[in-house]
């Protein structure tokens, strides 16, 4: 008689082993190594001894670090809802089996396949003063020009616009996939009950794709906390550090100042922040689910 398929056997672990080996080698080991480094005085070329919590104290006492944290939190708080909202809007708008919709899905997804270098180059053409698209538009309207990449406030906004444009494809596709999973009979039932479009949307569509929305938000929170390339290439964190995200702070510490210990300490703090934010978001949405 065959063994019940649910029965657990040690040899089953073999199936998970390839993934686990890679996971441990590429994630767990570097994570532990990072914690170790953060407690050392270290540059890229060697370790100079255990320094305890000194690196953490230096990071936490650094006004630039807190500025980077603030920038990153603001960036996440603004871009993630925008990405989810526009992704949902596009998903709904393009959830049709027509050629036009299929084409537009391709168009909206296309920016996602570009590298960050290309994305920032494109948006530089839009934002740069003088010959930039917006600059020319402002000139045509007779408005005073704005230094989008070099003015406090506008620089982070500009990075955000480029990011939303770049990252929009994934939320749209995930939401679209979820929308297409909704059984048609639910809509039929709603139609029979004479439900309005809004009511159908809030009572049928949204509850059905709720889990996907949570997934999209969680992925985006984790991704946007790691903002780096766009900020480095478009504004280099400026002016006055007002668009410098945490990863750029870490990069500066480790690669420009060669202070790997400080960079590692800041990385561990970023790890904790992302963990708390993602878990917090997950907890809040799940609590609502059970209520």
């Amino acid at each position, binding site marked *: 008689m065959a063994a019940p398929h649910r029965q657990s056997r040690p040899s089953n672990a073999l199936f998970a082993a390839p993934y686990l080996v890679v996971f441990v080698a590429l994630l767990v080991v570097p994570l532990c190594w990072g914690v170790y480094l953060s407690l050392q005085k270290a540059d890229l*070329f060697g370790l100079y001894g255990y320094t305890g919590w000194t690196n953490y104290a*230096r990071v936490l006492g650094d006004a630039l670090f807190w500025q980077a944290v603030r920038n990153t939190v603001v960036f996440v708080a603004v871009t993630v809802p925008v990405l989810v909202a526009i992704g949902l809007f596009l998903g709904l708008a393009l959830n049709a089996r027509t050629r036009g919709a299929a084409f537009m899905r391709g168009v909206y997804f296309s920016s996602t396949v570009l590298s960050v270098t290309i994305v920032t180059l494109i948006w530089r053409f839009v934002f740069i003063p*003088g*010959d930039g698209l917006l600059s020319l538009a402002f000139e045509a309207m007779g408005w005073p020009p704005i230094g989008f*990449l070099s003015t406090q406030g506008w620089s982070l906004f500009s990075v955000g616009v480029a990011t939303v444009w770049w990252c929009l494809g994934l939320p749209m596709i995930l939401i679209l996939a979820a929308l297409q999973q909704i059984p048609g009979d639910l809509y039929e039932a709603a139609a029979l009950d004479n439900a309005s479009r809004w009511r159908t949307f809030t009572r049928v569509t949204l509850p059905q794709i709720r889990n996907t929305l949570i997934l999209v938000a969680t992925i985006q929170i984790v991704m946007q906390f790691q903002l780096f390339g766009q900020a480095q290439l478009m504004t280099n964190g400026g002016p*006055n550090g007002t668009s410098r995200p945490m990863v750029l702070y870490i990069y*500066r510490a480790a*690669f*420009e100042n060669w*202070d790997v210990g400080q960079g590692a300490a800041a990385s561990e703090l970023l790890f904790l922040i992302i963990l708390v934010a993602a878990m917090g978001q997950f907890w809040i949405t799940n609590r609502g689910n059970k209520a």
Partner: protein
Amino acid sequence: MKTLLLTSAAIAFAATGASAQTTIELQRFFGACDADYGNSTDVDAAVGECGIITTLINRFQEENPEIDVEVTTVEWPGYDQLNAQLASRNAPDVVSMHYSAISDYQSRNLLEPLDDLLAEQGIETSAFTEAALAGVTKDGQIYALPFDNWTMLWHVNLNLMEEAGLVNDDGTPLLPDSTDAFFEQAAQFKEATGKPYLVQIYANETAAYARLFYTFLMQQGVDPFADPSQVDLSTPEASAVAEFMKRIYDEGATTTDMDYPAAVAGFGAGDGGIGINGTWLIGDWAAQSEEEGNALSDGYTVYPLPQLFEGEPATYADGHGWAVPRDPGRSDEERAAIGTLMTFLEENDGAWARTGHLPAVAEVIASEEFQSLPYRDNIAPVAEMGQSLNPEVRRQFAIQDIIGEELNSAIHGTKPVEEALGAAEQRINDLLASL
């Protein structure tokens, strides 16, 4: 069948043996321009840093078919990438390096001293200019082949200056000799042309701010790094420079918000009278001025940054060299190939000087070919005026970023001048103390 296989394998092996080449990896900034110069070996026809270095390496390849130079072009200045390569023991064989960055790598024993290699190639250190040799020498040894000296310059759009009545009878531009004269000229320029006097790099870059700041401090005889382990920015001279730079912005005497490419394009398009930018653009702008129908047509010249403060004439200068990262596994053939490349680069320093950089080889400066290049008389004083930071100061690029960032705040009024200078001092000293 078996014979056939063996024969073909033997042929393949012989073919590899016959074309055995020594490969050396060269990593550089100076930009990528393969579309224009990818296959060209005509160095004389090339213009600009990228064009000249690309054709030079192509020419080297042609003359030395047994050496294969693999070129990697990196985003300026490329040290972050080099650091990662060094940390992973995967550094290139030859890398472009600013003199100001050498002490970082030399102090961590990451660079090969080149004295023996150059001596084997018959290159005498006395061949180099004093400034260039000083730039690459640390603890009595040479850590890079010096290639040039460079500085920021006063690039002049003579057409606009003429329109503003700011030229002498002999057609040379009026250069300010004090900060007051500077603002008088700026006002006169703006009134006549409606344009700002200066075209500056204000966004997304910190180097330009720091180089000007150093220059104006040096013009007052102040060395902020008298002690290489800490900076002193609490001096009245430092405040005076920052206040001057802020006033330029406040009075609208400069373009604003331009990043490096925008500032280069802006000066070329006639957005202002004076472009503050490096030696490396002389070649490009001189070539542009010889063409018809553009903002610089028949109306370009260039001078050192004018002496605006009381003191001995001075301007901040640095230089580019070719360093060789340490690699215990490097073969004799590779080492010899590096030597051949170094000799070639040294011999062609005159071609490189066409970019606008000051040559590192003394003989080139004296040569008629160099002397006959346009505007070289004007900028010749840089050889005397040029000063570097205290060469023992480490992390000069990180320091430059801090100074540039804080000055940006002061200039744009987001921080009071004293607060910005205080913050810069505190950040730099924290950085240097952690080394």
